[in-house]
């Protein structure tokens, strides 16, 4: 196995008396697409800022491309592409100019930057907007421009902090497609998300993070295998009847989660469990059999939903 491009061990970040990251360990292999999945406030962004060699760690070890960010921040950052949670494009500049000034930060020659800027605008599907003001772009376009900007230095590692949060479904799919292409080209991706489908689509391997700690680690499929059943039966009896119904269906399926609005029954055969429920004389208002997702893994691990 090739040497990892990122190694973190017992990584901790504290702000005054608040612990954002409470000792986490992980490695990222070159070319891998690695995800940090967790709810808001889990410490994902803080971890990303430490990997980005911007935020200094409180304790623990961190090595990026074999270098310590405390000593080699600028050197490490020269090899990274960063897509922060909140876009920080320069609103006073036009679309293409944003790429030109950013490329200069890496000390790249102007001709090379100009060439790359045009390629990246093409890649980000923004070629026809290159003279537009950043403010005039839609949210999805700004996001794609931020990604294009992050690629101006041909980074070894691309860091994406909640790349599609706040985007509409269509914009998300365009973005996923672009990110998937990068992954196919062998760019190492590290991303945080609280969207299951995003993690399942983009990550080879991920860690589930909650309250600054890693709860589980593995590929999306293996996590689902390990922490959930193949299928999930979702039944709704109406908000005030769910818990009462839960008592009556106890024993059906491998495990039951009672949520305020529905019951989740974990099983390898959802339809069969639904039949059992009907035989008990219970008639859910709605029922749905679906495959297990990372949402179920998270619920199992923390007892909470990801998006609350």
């Amino acid at each position, binding site marked *: 196995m090739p040497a990892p491009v990122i190694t973190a061990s017992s990584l901790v970040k504290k702000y005054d008396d608040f612990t954002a990251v409470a000792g986490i360990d992980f490695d990222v292999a070159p070319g891998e697409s690695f995800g940090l999945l967790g709810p808001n406030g889990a410490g994902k962004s803080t971890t990303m800022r430490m990997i980005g060699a911007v935020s200094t760690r409180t304790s623990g070890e961190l090595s990026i491309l074999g270098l310590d960010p405390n000593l*080699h921040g600028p050197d490490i950052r020269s*090899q990274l592409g960063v897509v922060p949670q909140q876009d920080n494009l320069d609103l006073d*500049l036009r679309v293409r100019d944003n790429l030109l000034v950013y490329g*200069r930060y*890496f*000390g790249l020659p102007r001709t090379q930057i100009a060439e790359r800027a045009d390629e990246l605008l093409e890649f980000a599907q923004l070629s026809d907007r290159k003279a537009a003001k950043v403010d005039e772009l839609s949210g999805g376009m700004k996001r794609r421009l931020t990604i294009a900007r992050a690629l101006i230095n041909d980074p*070894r590692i691309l860091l994406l902090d909640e790349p599609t949060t706040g985007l509409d479904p269509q914009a998300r799919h365009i973005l996923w497609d672009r990110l998937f292409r990068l992954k196919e080209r062998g760019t190492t991706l590290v991303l945080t998300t609280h969207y299951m489908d995003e993690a399942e689509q983009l990550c080879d391997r991920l860690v589930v993070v909650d309250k600054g700690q890693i709860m589980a680690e593995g590929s999306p499929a293996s996590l689902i295998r390990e922490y959930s059943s193949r299928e999930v039966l979702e039944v709704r009896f109406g908000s005030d009847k769910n818990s009462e119904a839960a008592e009556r269906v106890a024993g059906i399926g491998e495990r039951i989660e009672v949520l305020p609005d529905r019951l989740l029954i974990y099983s390898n055969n959802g339809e069969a469990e639904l039949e059992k429920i009907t035989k008990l004389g219970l008639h859910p208002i709605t029922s749905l059999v679906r495959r297990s997702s990372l949402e179920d893994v998270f619920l199992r691990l923390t007892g909470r939903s990801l998006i609350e």
Partner: protein
Amino acid sequence: MTATVPESARASGPDNEDARRALAAGVAPRRYGALYIVEHRIRALRGYASSAILTSLGNPIVYLFALGVGLASLVPEGIGGVSYLEFVAPALLCAAAMTVAANETTYPIVAGFKWNPIFHGMNASPIQGNQIVQGIMLFIALRMTFAVAVYYAVILAFGAVPSVWGILTVPIAVLTGMAIGLLISSYSATLKDERGQLAMVMRFGFTPMFLFSGTFFPLEQLPIYLQPIGWVSPLWHGVELGRLAAYGHDIAPWLIAVHIGYLVSIVVIGLWSTSRTVTRRLAG
């Protein structure tokens, strides 16, 4: 906080190739980072260049007519042996520098963290916090030099500079402006929320300084208990030096040293404290 180079950085293998590439790529930004920031700001200036040029030209003309021609007619005997126009011209030049400083170091600094958070973008690249500050300040100094030079040309056109040494009022004004700008940025860089604090700075800092720094009348005209406003004001120190250059205003040599020393010290301290604040905020 540990600060040791991890084993893998010293070991051979593919890791080491990555590290070598990173160290090589870090050289240019470490050296020229501040200049890249200047480039960025100049490009952003294009958006408002025409209005900047217009105010650079319009302001001095208005002020020189109002004060040098209008108000001067009420002071026919002049002040300290020179005409009122000659007396007020170096002060106006320093005040013009101060205005550029205030424009560039108040809202734009808060904006860089908050409304148009370009500082965070810069810091995600190889650029470091102190380089961001140096670059921004260098750009402001350039912009200020341009504005002051235009102002000086207008002053010359009004025939308000008796001495050939008058040209020195340009660097003096820039030094004064930068001292004031760095004083303001030391504060504005700490602002996480802008709830009118900057307007207060303008009202209770900028305006009194503008009026009570021996700008429009000699500081000695003020009652003694108000004169300390002038002594602490960087503008007064700059104006005194400007008058020395413009018409040989009588100042004791030790006082010249005090004026220069005061302004230079503020620049150095302001640069240090702004850099520290910005670096810490970005590393949080």
